[in-house]
């Protein structure tokens, strides 16, 4: 059994990678995928901690996070489709009529 810290470090790195993607990508689907990456990183933290602490709560939480991710994916992709229909683009920088 390797130490929980390894997993936490891996999770932290993946989380930061996700943040990097959100900050730098323009395609909203890719941005969303980066957010999924962040959520997965957190899932890893949960499961690692759950194993370490010896209680199931964390893993149950991961189940719910997955459900949430699925729900968000459905709604988010629907939003992107409507956006694409109006603008012929998925570039988040095109979402700029509302400002100031």
């Amino acid at each position, binding site marked *: 059994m390797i130490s929980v810290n390894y997993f936490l470090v891996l999770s932290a790195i993946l989380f930061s990678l996700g943040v990097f993607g959100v900050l730098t990508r323009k395609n909203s689907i890719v941005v969303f995928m980066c957010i999924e990456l962040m959520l997965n990183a957190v899932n890893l933290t949960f499961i690692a901690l759950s194993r370490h602490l010896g209680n199931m709560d964390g893993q149950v939480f991961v189940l719910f996070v997955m459900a949430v991710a699925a729900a968000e994916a459905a709604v988010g992709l629907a939003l992107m489709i409507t956006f694409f229909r109006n603008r012929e683009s998925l570039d988040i920088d095109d*979402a700029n009529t509302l400002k100031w």
Partner: protein
Amino acid sequence: MENLVQIAIQNVNIDAILPSLVLCSFGMVLLLMNAFMPRGKSTPAAWFSLVAIIVTGIVSLAAWNKPEFGFFGGVALDNYATFFNIIFLVAAGLTILMSDDYLKREGYPVGEFYTLILFATAGSMVMASGTNLMMIFLGLEILSVSLYVLAGFFRNQTKSNEAGLKYFLLGAFSTGFLLYGIALLYGVTGTFDLARMGEFVSANPEAISNPMAVAGLMLLSTGFLFKIAAAPFHMWTPDTYQGAPTPITAFMSAGPKAAAFAGFIRILILGLGSMKAEWTSLLWIIAVLTMIVGNVIAIYQTDIKRTLAYSSIAHAGYALVGIVAANEIGVSGILFYMLAYTFMNLGAFAVLVLVGKKGEENLTLDGFAGFGYKRPWLAIAMVIFLFSLMGIPPTAGFAGKFYIFAGAVKAGYIWLAVIGVLNSAVSLYYYLRIMVAMYFKAPTEEFEWIKMSAPVVASIVIAVVGVLYMGILPGGVISLAKNALF
């Protein structure tokens, strides 16, 4: 295995989730109803959802002073939850009242609109009554997912699309931080249950200085501050509020914000009360920043909806002052203020719904020129709401600010209160512009006939009564709010 079933059944206390259960049931029935209704008819759905709100209101009120707990301590339908439930229901009810004509005008008479509002309200209720991070998180997500859809509901309108997309991407992003915070707190305390978390932290004082716990607290706060629209996590607010359908903007600025406060306060006080020093000092700064950002940027706006969006940021700042105070007056002041804000803000938005034309036009200051003489009654109602937003006595806004600032003063945060008062003096500037437009400007063009419909008028009347009642005789509501503290 049978043992397990028994354990589960013993802990299933339907009474503890009755309000949200009733609301969800209505929501599902409504969903079916919509499926069999001819397309383009949303009025029956509106009335049905109003019935749902009223029935749920009765069910909620029945729970007053009869706290129910259940589901392994995951749910507490105490007075605190009930008070917030009423706020959510008022917000949802007023929103539904002002929505129907609006939806017809904009060409989206879709019954699912109301279903989503009902589910969003149910999510808010879960947040208010959850005593477990898992519950609160799921409530938050039910609420958020509904709101993502509602914000982008006008799928052919560019603005609405954009509002939905921005809200969604940033909301999901902030969910990432929130979850990381929850994970870290779980790692430190080994539980999601707020009561057990509180016990653990007070039993292990070294946890307070554990960087993981502190970081967890801060990340968790980030997630909630995003929903509350506090600076610097407020950036989505003006855009989304401006682009979303007006009734939804009204709803978002009142109900979900209150829900975020409900969950946040419960987590902070019940679960992390021992880390009070950390979170008060954080929220002090956030509150000041939020008030300043909201009020200052609002000055430069010409779109009234956007102005009100910034003003709602500022109001979140005022309410945060109450959390910083973290005493009886301050927290009950927040409950009071949230209800007051629900009335005044939804009232103001209801007027906007009436004034606006198809495609959300007419919502600049010019749209209000000469309004005071052409539509004196509506204008008087608007003046009352604006006064309440400014915090001028004897309106609910004044009483609410008074309680919150009195709480801050009593807790020794006198400078915070001074900054708050100064900010509300600044806020005058942009509210006054609306009044100036209404009373001191001749109409720029021939004023179009506003179609007044009974439901919208009813929502305005209810809001006026609420604002004045809570302003002139706030004693009743504030004593309820005090009883509602857990």
